[in-house]
């Protein structure tokens, strides 16, 4: 476990789930009664993946655990059954055994909560279970899924995460990275939090591609509520909202870091856009390194509090964490050189791109993000001028007026038209591009 954050093993002493590591052995298809039993057992408070795995090992199957619990003297049978012959494991506590017995009795109600909220239980061994998750230390025995996990089986899955309080620039960068990844055929996963996570998901939705959100609590306790509509849009767009927790589990301080291991674990690489010194996004980055995934950090000014965590992480893990020097460069580093469906260009086809210092670098990526002008085609000049300024980082009406040289009234009117078509929005007295405009490339002509 790396230095930052909380491990997945807050439940137990850091041991690996027996047989739970990246083995290539195909798992036996899951029986329907085991799937239901898993859904019931995961609702038990205190029964995490480790203990559950151990009980399954001892008693044979999830369904067998429930049968034991429902039988006569179920509690004692569970305790006895959980004791290993060699004494390697201690027996489960009585309170936990009681809770399992209660859950077994409430089986019908608990299953109703799952099916009633339109959730599916995708367990290990199911074809839909995200393949990359099988390779992490403690894979969740089952996932509660709204939507489809199909998009996690594509060639590249990339997590885009960051602070819940980003700067306007950070938001735009997250949107651009997510849009570019989508255009290159990768699936973006994130955590549905406000801020960077939300911007990344929203960019995928506006590109019309599936994206997957791992949430840190039960589905019935979706947090933040402000993202209810975003969650719906993700599901409607062919993506999924996923939780390893039963529907009624309250999100808490401990569930979010644990959830973070799924964000990194289901991806090939994690991109951290902005993170303050104690941001949970750094936990996800640490998980990525732990799980042997690529870790990309967008650097920021050393004066920017929203980038303290990013810069600190780059310093602490130099050599392991990689720097994001631009969106095309990131795509190159992820092996996403071409737009989806196009053949990867040969090295000789690499385009020359000018860096800020005038040096030319070879970038193979052919993925292009549109310019503000392209997004705004056919709109009036005032809107175009204001949109250009927004994409270039103007945020207040003061700045928009100064940059566009339009009157205050004209700028305000243009903002109204942009907002009405979902291209800009006010937030705390500042304005920012949203939707397709958020992903516009400020350097594109």
């Amino acid at each position: 476990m790396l230095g930052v954050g909380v491990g997945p093993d807050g439940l137990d002493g850091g041991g690996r789930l027996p047989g739970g590591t990246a083995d290539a052995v195909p798992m036996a298809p899951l029986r329907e009664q085991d799937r239901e039993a898993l859904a019931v057992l995961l609702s038990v408070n205190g029964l995490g993946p480790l203990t559950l795995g151990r009980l399954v090992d001892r008693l044979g199957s999830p369904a067998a655990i429930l049968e034991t619990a429902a039988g006569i003297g179920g509690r004692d049978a569970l305790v006895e059954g959980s004791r290993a012959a060699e004494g390697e494991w201690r027996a489960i506590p009585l309170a936990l055994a009681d809770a399992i017995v209660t859950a077994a009795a409430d089986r019908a109600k608990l299953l109703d909560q799952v099916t009633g909220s339109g959730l599916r239980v995708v367990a290990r061994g199911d074809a839909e279970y995200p393949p990359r998750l099988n390779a992490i230390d403690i894979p969740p025995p089952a996932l509660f899924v709204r939507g489809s996990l199909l998009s996690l089986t594509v060639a590249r899955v990339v997590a885009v995460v960051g602070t819940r309080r980003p700067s306007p620039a950070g938001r735009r960068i997250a949107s651009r990275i997510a849009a570019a990844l989508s255009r290159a055929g990768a699936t973006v996963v994130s955590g549905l939090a406000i801020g960077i996570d939300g911007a990344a998901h929203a960019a995928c939705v506006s590109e019309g591609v599936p994206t997957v959100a791992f949430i840190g609590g039960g589905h019935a306790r979706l947090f933040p509520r402000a993202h209810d509509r975003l969650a719906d849009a993700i599901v409607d767009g062919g993506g999924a909202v996923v939780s390893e927790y039963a529907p009624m589990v309250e999100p808490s301080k401990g569930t979010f870091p644990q959830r973070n291991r799924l964000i990194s674990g289901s991806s090939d690489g994690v991109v951290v856009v902005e993170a303050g010194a104690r941001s949970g996004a750094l936990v996800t980055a640490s998980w990525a390194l732990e799980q042997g995934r690529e870790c990309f950090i967008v650097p920021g000014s050393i004066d920017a509090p929203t980038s303290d965590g990013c810069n600190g992480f780059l310093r602490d893990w130099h050599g392991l964490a990689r720097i994001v020097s631009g969106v095309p460069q990131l795509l190159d580093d992820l092996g996403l050189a071409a737009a989806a469906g196009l053949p990867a260009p040969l090295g000789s086809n690499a385009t020359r791109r000018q860096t800020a210092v005038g040096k030319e670098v070879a970038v193979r990526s052919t993925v292009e993000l549109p310019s503000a002008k392209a997004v705004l085609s056919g709109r009036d000049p005032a809107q175009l001028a204001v949109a250009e300024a927004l994409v270039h980082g103007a945020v207040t009406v003061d700045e928009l007026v100064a940059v566009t040289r339009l009157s205050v009234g004209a700028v305000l009117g243009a903002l109204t038209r942009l907002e009405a078509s979902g291209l800009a929005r006010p937030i705390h007295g500042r304005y920012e591009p949203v939707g397709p405009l958020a992903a516009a490339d400020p350097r594109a002509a």
Partner: protein
Amino acid sequence: MLATLLSATLVALDGRVIRVEVDVAPGLPGFTIVGLGDASIREARERVRGALRNAGFVHPPRRITVNLAPADVPKTGSAADLAIAIGILIGSEQFTPRAGRAALIGEVSLGGEIRPVPGLLPMVAALARRSVRRVIVPADGADEARLVDGLEVVPAATLVEAVDALRSRRRAAPTRPARVELAPAAAASAGRPGPALAPPLPPPDLADVRGQVEARRALEVALAGGHGLLMIGPPGTGKTMLARTIPKLLPPLSDADSLSATIVASASGEGPIHALVRTPPFRAPHHTSSYAAIVGGGPRLAPGEVTRADNGVLFLDELAEFSRDVLEALRQPLEDGRVSIVRAAGAVTLPARFQLVAATNPCPCGHAGEDDRCICGESVPARYVGRISGPLRDRIDVWVTLARIRAAVMFDDAEPESSDVVGARIAAARALQQARPGGKLNSRIGSRGLRAVARLRPVTRDRLSELADAERLSGRGTERLLRVARTVADLAGADAVEVEHLEEAARWRPPSSRPVMALAV
């Protein structure tokens, strides 16, 4: 002997003529005042006793009974002091007044000086209505009393001067007993014009406000149409400073409004007043102010801040920190332009046609939207502004959010428009509105009137319904949009509301009514 004189008392903003009957009879020495007087009237006994003695008169060792009539009007304050003192002098035959109806208003000091009282103007006006021909008032209040036509105002600085003004023939002033003055002059002449201890800061000019063009424009639009304005923003972004420029931006009051503003100022004890109040009042009560301080009331039925802001602006800084009761109480005045105060003794209705201007932080810590500085939870900012209740938010037409400006804007060379320039535009826009039938400001026109003055062309009407649909505006929200757009058009001198005016006005909607056009927060 019985002496009967006229004086007046103040009931809220109204003067009431009262008859002061003083009977000085033989018997055990005593001094009784009857007639529904409050504590300050009962204390008049002590003031009058001292004043008579120290002015060189005799406080007669007889049985003195003062009756204040009519008995059913509650009398408050010290305005009857002078009449009581003079009544005793007449009743004890220390001088003989000449014939003719004269009234007396004033508080007496222990030294025999006559001090100004709150509400002199409405009290004198009440006397004039009752055909009183002559009134003796405190010397400091002479200018104020002379604002009333139709009666002779006689200023008197001391009891002796008052006696001289009333007596039938002149005689030498009585010798005054020796006394020692230790109090500094300024304190002794409390209420007289002189250096105030904490002079109010002069209002800043709009040219002193850097950046914040959006908020400046919102302020201009709000003042031009009399719309309620709420500024939301972190501390130090200029909300309060912008609000403090308001007195310089508003046009002077009309004659009728000016008279009523002067009466309110007089009754609120802002005197002595030397001329009609022409500047629209700007009241900025603190958020810890009590219900009675804002609405009015108390034993004296004193006008509250809503009444003192009549014809002007009521500025509530830190709006979300005001108590719920106080904010709820603003409902009636915002809707009817007046406020009713109901007491056990009866009810009065006071004018309260103020324009509401308010400011609030976006969240309890004040730093929402400022990178990592906000320490509030994610949903706290929305809840904080959400504390402003529905009826109140319905009366606020113009909402604007301010963000901290960058230092570059703060110190650039561009000279912002001055209050004179913006004030002229506001005055012109108001003149346009007042020239229309009814002469009401846009914020006060009814729905039908609004449709008439908007003069929407079909294309503008279509755009209005598009905007309303896109923003999912309620009927009230759409009307508010059109109302503000009418003011934007007035500022532009346009006859009809055009699309551009609608689109600018659409920026001043409450943030909460904004559906999440973008998916992600």
